[in-house]
Each structure stands twice: as structure tokens, then as C-alpha cells.
């Protein structure tokens, strides 16, 4: 598979995530769309990691080029897990206060 296919898959997933953030009003679904966008970036990083590894393998059989990108994906997952905990706590708190997860109620800054 050419790398371009993976790039387009990643772009499509990212844009679906953006469209979801823009069109939905449920805070939890918006949050899930953000997870979708994070995963689109992850698959792009892994594809480029493989690409550079294959390029480096041509000259050196024992090369470890490309490991850094996979570690980067690992750290993105770590940060996403931490983000989800705090984000869901905020959503639960918001539900407890206004009994809804509709983001249109979060317009206090306008007034």
C-alpha cells in the first residue's frame, strides 16, 4: 500500500471528527469525536514510522529508525487517557449542576 492511502485515511478520519464536533450538541459525543481525531493522528505517525524504517532498512539491516514515532503514539495514548478522565469528570459535574450535557447551555461567557 502506498503511504498516500494511509494519509488519506487519516485525513478522512480527522475531518469526520471535525464535522462531528461542529454538528453535535451532546458533550460526550463531541468528546468522542476528539478521540477520533487523536486516533487519526496516531495512524499517520505509525505510517510515517514504517515509511522511514523501510527507507533506512535499505542501507542498514539492524536499524531502529522509526521507533521514536511509535513511542510518540504511545505518549499520545497516555495523554489521551489522562484527558479522558478529567474531561469525563467535568462532564459529570456539569450534568450534576444543570442536568443536561447539552453544550448550548454553556453560554455564560456570552452574557
Amino acid at each position, binding site marked *: 500500500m502506498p503511504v498516500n*492511502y494511509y494519509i488519506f485515511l487519516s485525513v478522512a478520519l*480527522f475531518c469526520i471528527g471535525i464535522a462531528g*464536533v461542529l454538528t453535535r450538541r451532546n458533550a460526550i459525543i463531541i468528546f*468522542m469525536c476528539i478521540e477520533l481525531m487523536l486516533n487519526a493522528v496516531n495512524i499517520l505517525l505509525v505510517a510515517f514510522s514504517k515509511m522511514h524504517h523501510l527507507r533506512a532498512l535499505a542501507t542498514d539491516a539492524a536499524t531502529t529508525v522509526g*521507533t521514536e514515532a511509535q513511542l510518540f503514539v504511545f505518549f499520545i495514548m497516555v495523554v489521551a487517557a489522562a484527558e479522558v478522565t478529567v474531561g469525563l469528570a467535568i462532564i459529570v459535574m456539569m450534568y450534576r449542576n444543570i442536568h443536561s450535557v447539552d453544550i448550548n447551555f454553556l453560554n455564560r461567557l456570552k452574557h
Partner: protein
Amino acid sequence: MTITAILFWFLTVLALLGALMVVSSKNPVHSVLWLIVVFFALSGHYIMMNAQFLAIVNLIVYAGAIMVLFLFVIMLMNMNADSEPQKNQWLKLAGAIAGGALMLVLVAALKDTETRYRSLEGAEGNIGLIEQLGKVLFTDYVLPFEISSVLFLSAMVGAVVLGKKD
């Protein structure tokens, strides 16, 4: 069509279908389940790109832990009654057009790049195995690793503080 191509297209279609269903389902529980489908498809892609460790971590952390957290919160709020107020049609259309326009721009900008001559065929290389990743993680990247543990601790404290009833 080789078996690799068949697998690639199957996983891609599955991921895109799942993503579309996440965005378009009315019921939040269905959205979560479709998101799990997307994560499984992406894990398949990781395995095809020789990133076995990431595939397993993706399944355990995302599909296993994070999605269960989402499901718990949704069931806690009793939102599986699909009573979500909808945005009006024009706003939805505008959002979809905005996402589509961004996709158009990105695809148009990237379709003629040099990467289209690069292929990802070939199963050689073992950088995705846990041995290789662990070596690099615990030598070159040990400081970010420790910092991420502090991040987890603060996220835990933050979740407890936010979730406390006051």
C-alpha cells in the same frame, strides 16, 4: 488483489463507516460501540504496519479502558433515551461542509507529494515489538515516561476533586 490489499480496504472501510456512524447515531451508546469498532479497525492497521505493541495497547487502553469509562458515564446519566436536542439543519449542514472543505483542501494539497511513490509493503523489521520499544523508552525517553506518571497522578487527583460533591 493481494491479501494485504484486501485487508487494507476492509479495515479502511470499516474504520470510515464506524467513524461516520459515531458522528451520525442518535443514541450515545451506539456511538460508543461504533467508536470501539473504529479502534479495532485501527488496531488491524497497526498490525499490518508492524506496530504490534501499539495495536495491543490501542485495544487495551482505548477499546478496553477509555470506552468502558464512556459507557459508564453515559449509563450513569441515563442518556440512552435518545432525547438529545438537535442543532438546526443549517448549522448541521454548515458543520458538514466545513469538515468536507477541510478534507478537500488537505487531500488536494497532499495528493501529489513525494510520499505517493513510497510503498509500505514488506513485513521486515521489528521496531514495533515490545523489546525494541522498551529499550528506547527506558533509555532515551525515561524522563518523559516519568513525567507522564506525574501527569497521571495529577489527572487522578483532578478527577477525584472534580467529581466530589461539595
